[in-house]
C-alpha cells in the first residue's frame, strides 16, 4: 500500500515500526523465549540477606525483590502492556467513533446530548477518574483495560464528531439523500471510508497513551496485579529501591518509553501521510 511505502521512507517511523514488530514478536513468542518462569521466586535469586541480584550474573538483567528473573518478567510484561494497550485503545476508539459518528450524522438533540456528555467526561481529570473506577471495580486485567478505555474515548469522539458533521453536509451526501438512498447506506459507503484514516491515526497514537496510562495505574498499585508482570507494576513493586537496585526501575522504564515512543512515531508519520492538514496539532 502507498501508506506502507511512505512509512518506510521516514526513518524515524521505520525505527518505530521495527520496535513495535519486535515487541509484538517477543510478546507472542514469550513462552518459548523466556529463560525462567516469570512468577517463580527462585531460591538463589536473592542474596542471603534477601537483596536482589544485579544484572550480569546468572540472571541476565538481574532479579527482583522476590528473586524472580527480571528478563523473563520484562518479556511477559511486554505481553501484558501490549495487550492492555491495544485492547483498551481499540475499545476507546470504537466507543469514541460510535458516539462521534452517531452524533455527527444524526444531529439534533441526540448530538447535543452526546456531545454534552462528552464534555462532561472531559472535565474529569483522566487519572483521577481511572483511579476511582479502579477502586470501585477491583482491578483485574480486563477491568484495567476497560477503565483505561473509559477515560480515553473522549478525544476520539470529538474529532470523529467534527469530521462526520463536515462530511454529512457535503453536497454529494445531500444528493444521495435526495435520490432516496437509505441513511445506513450513506453512512456505510460515503462517510465511514473517509473516517478510516483518522481512525487509523488514533488507533496508533492512542496506544501510546493507553500504554502510558496502564503503566501509571500499575505504578500506583491499582493496575495489573502482581504476580502477573506488567512494566508498570514492576516499577511499582520496586520503586523505593531506585537507589539500591536501579535496574529494577529504569529497565522497565526504558521499555515503556521505547514502546510509547515507537507508537508515537508511527502514529505521527501516519497522520502526516494521511492528512497533512493536521500536521503538528494535538
Amino acid at each position, binding site marked *: 500500500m502507498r501508506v506502507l511505502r511512505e512509512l518506510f521512507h521516514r526513518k*524515524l517511523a521505520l525505527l518505530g515500526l521495527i520496535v513495535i514488530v519486535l515487541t509484538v514478536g517477543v510478546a507472542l513468542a514469550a513462552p518459548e523465549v523466556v529463560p525462567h518462569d516469570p512468577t517463580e521466586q527462585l531460591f538463589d535469586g536473592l542474596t542471603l540477606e534477601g537483596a536482589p541480584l544485579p544484572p550480569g550474573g546468572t540472571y541476565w538483567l538481574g532479579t527482583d525483590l522476590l528473586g524472580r528473573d527480571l528478563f523473563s518478567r520484562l518479556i511477559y510484561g511486554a505481553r501484558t502492556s501490549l495487550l492492555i494497550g491495544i485492547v483498551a485503545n481499540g475499545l476507546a476508539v470504537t466507543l469514541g467513533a460510535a458516539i462521534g459518528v452517531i452524533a455527527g450524522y444524526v444531529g439534533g438533540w441526540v448530538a447535543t446530548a452526546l456531545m*454534552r456528555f462528552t*464534555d*462532561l467526561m*472531559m*472535565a*474529569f*481529570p*483522566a*487519572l*483521577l477518574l481511572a*483511579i*476511582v*473506577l479502579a*477502586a*470501585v471495580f477491583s482491578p483485574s486485567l480486563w477491568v484495567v483495560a476497560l477503565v483505561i478505555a473509559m477515560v480515553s474515548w473522549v478525544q476520539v469522539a470529538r474529532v470523529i464528531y467534527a469530521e462526520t458533521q463536515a462530511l454529512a453536509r457535503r453536497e454529494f451526501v445531500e444528493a444521495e439523500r435526495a435520490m432516496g438512498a437509505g441513511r445506513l447506506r450513506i453512512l456505510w459507503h460515503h462517510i465511514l471510508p473517509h473516517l478510516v484514516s483518522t481512525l487509523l491515526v488514533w488507533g496508533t497514537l492512542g496506544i*501510546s497513551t493507553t500504554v*502510558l496510562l496502564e*503503566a*501509571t495505574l500499575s*505504578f*500506583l498499585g491499582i493496575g495489573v496485579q502482581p504476580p502477573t508482570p506488567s512494566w*508498570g507494576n514492576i*516499577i511499582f513493586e520496586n*520503586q523505593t529501591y*531506585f*537507589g539500591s537496585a*536501579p535496574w529494577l*526501575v*529504569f529497565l522497565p*522504564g526504558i521499555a*515503556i*518509553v521505547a514502546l*510509547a*515512543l515507537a507508537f*508515537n*512515531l508511527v502514529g*505521527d508519520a501516519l497522520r502526516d501521510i494521511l492528512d497533512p492538514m493536521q*500536521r*503538528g*496539532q*494535538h
Partner: protein
Amino acid sequence: MAAYCARRLVQSLLILLGVSIITFALLYLLPADPARQIAGRSATPEMVASIRHQLGLDQPFYLQYLHYAGRLLSGDLGRSYVQRTDVTALILTRLPPTLVLMVGSIATELALGLVMGMTAALKRNTSVDRVLMVISFVGVSAPQFVLGILLLYVFAVRLAWFPIGGYGSLRQLVLPALTLGILGAGWYARMMRSSLLDVLQQDYLRTAHAKGLSGAVVLLRHALPNAILPVIAMIGLDIGTFMSGIVVVESVFGWPGIGQLTWQAIQRVDIPIIMGVTLVSACAIVLGNLLADLIAPTIDPRIKLR
C-alpha cells in the same frame, strides 16, 4: 460575545453538576465503610451504627447527594473522615503549592517548548531539527513517574544539586516543574515548529522582506508573536493533563499540594476529600477549557506592518 460567554458559563456549571453527581455515585459504590473506619477496630456494632447515623450514611443515595449539593452551595465540602478537618480548609491550605507548581510547569514547558520549536523550525530539515523533534517525542512518551524518579535520583540524590523533594524554595521547585513540564514541552515544541513554519511562509512576511526589513526583525516582531498564539491557546487545555500529572509527581517529590492530598485520600478511601478534589480539579479544567475557547477565536494571523 457576551451572550457566548454567558452560554458557555451556564454550560460549565451544568458540567460541574454532572461531575459531582457521577463522582458521588461512584464513591457511593465503594465497598469500604467510612463508619467502620472511624469507629476503629475495637468498636461494637452499636457504635458503628451510631456513627453511621451521625454521618448521615444510612440515608438513601439521593438524599445524601442533595445534602451534599446543598452544603456545596455555601462552599462547604464536608468533613474528612480520616483527617477530621474541614475539606474546604484542607484544600485551601494545599492549593498554593499546587498553583506554584502549575506556574512553574507552564513556564518550563513554554520555555523549553517554544525554544525547541523555534530552533527546529529555523533549522528545518537539518539534523538539529530531527534531533529536537526526537527529543520532543521522547518527552511525550515518557511516563511522568519514571521521569520524576530519574530526575530525583540523578540530580538530587547522586549529584546533590537540588534538595530531595519538599517545598518552600525555588530550588525545590525545579525538579517537579521539569518533570511536569517535559510532557507539555514535547507537544509545544512540535506545535511551535509547525506554527512558525506556517507563518514564515505567509505572503505578508515576504512583503516585509521585500520592503527591506532584516531577517531577525521580521522574525521577532512579526513571525514569532503570531506563531506563539496557537500555542498559548492550548495552555488552557493543558490543565486537564496537569491535574492528572500532579497526583503522581507531587507524591514522588513530597510536594504538599492537592495532588499529594488526592493520592493520600485515595489510599485511605477518604471519600469527602476525593469528592472535593475531583470537583476542584474539574473546576480548573472547565475554566481552562473556557479560557482556551475564548482566546482561540480571537486569534487573527494577519497583522499590520509597521
